[in-house]
């Protein structure tokens, strides 16, 4: 192999390695691509935008919090259900999961169960008209609050503000 040929091979291989992230320094930079720069790049390929509502008519802005009606008067054996409406305003279909969903509250005085979101796939609706979500782009999810029968009297009258649960959408 002549010197000129060897030089060419090394040059081409180096370009490939750098672009491919094979050089350690580049690999480190790549791993740190989890902030704004990368988000912008992802957004250029599509948007993920899941909106929520307490009534199915007025929707939150992207990332906004849905405030549901308070759950009051729970006593043993009774159950109260709260529903959140979900709308996929993304440019891609979304699958849904419950995230940050507590199973009990107030030291076990309240049990919380959630409707299944397994298999739920919301169609993309990037038109983003909150008054007319496209068919298949909306659904509902429910959380049911219950005081178990036989709950201790020490549970009586207790309360907890700002109970938080989260529904998460990811590309289906």
């Amino acid at each position, binding site marked *: *192999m*002549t010197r000129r*040929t060897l030089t*060419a*091979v090394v040059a*081409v*291989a180096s*370009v*490939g*390695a750098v*672009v*491919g*992230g*094979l050089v350690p320094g580049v690999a480190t930079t790549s791993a740190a*691509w*989890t902030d704004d720069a*990368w988000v912008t790049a*992802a957004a250029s390929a599509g948007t993920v935008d899941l909106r*929520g509502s307490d009534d199915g008519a007025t929707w939150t802005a*992207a*990332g906004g*919090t*849905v*405030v*549901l009606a*308070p*759950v*009051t*008067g*729970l*006593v*043993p054996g009774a159950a109260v259900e*709260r529903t*959140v409406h*979900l709308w996929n305003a993304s440019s891609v279909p*979304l699958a849904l999961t419950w*995230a940050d969903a507590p199973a009990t*509250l*107030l030291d076990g005085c*309240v049990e919380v169960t959630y409707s299944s979101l397994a298999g739920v796939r919301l169609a993309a609706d990037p038109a983003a008209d909150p008054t007319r979500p496209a068919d298949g782009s909306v659904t509902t999810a429910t*959380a049911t*609050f219950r005081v178990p029968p036989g709950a*201790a*009297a020490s*549970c*009586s*009258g*207790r*309360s*907890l*503000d700002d*109970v*938080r*649960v*989260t*529904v*998460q*959408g*990811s*590309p289906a």
Partner: protein
Amino acid sequence: MTRTAPARRTLVVLLAVAALVVAAVRLTVDATDRTTAAWTADVPVTTDVALGTWTASVGACTAVRAATLEPVPGRGCDVVDVWGYKVEDGHPVGSRWAQIRIDIDSPGGYEPGLAFLVEVDLSAPGEAPADWRYEGGWFFGSNLLPLPGARCADLPTARMLFPEWAANAGVFIEIDLREAGASGNQSSCERQAGG
């Protein structure tokens, strides 16, 4: 062996193509990984939770007609408390007796012929000695109304018929709970033969 010039050029081209393929694959994998990891959107949901108030269930109460024991529609009744458990001193295990007080509540005021069918687990308040012997025992309350079918053998569950005035505020019914070997003949429950 000496390679010819065309062979070297072919080698160079192959190396270059291989490097570019590696680069392309790496870029694709990177993009997919990052997209999967961060392409999510959350909808936070909040609410406030407040429990109602209740008391521990210590018994059942039904408003009835005293003469027929038929339930009175629309008339509520609750066992509010079983309390004041007091074991009399000086009696051996198996021959003891204890005083127990029972509160009921029934909003609605006086109604002629009204009575209250009460069923309580006398061991539930947790004040009875752990070694209390219910078998063969009985209970008696001087203010209780006769209740056919109330069996002493059901202890620690006691079925009793309270008079109408027992629902008045601040009023309680006191009963004596006795072990099999305790003295006394009066009973508000039906004792087994020889018991």
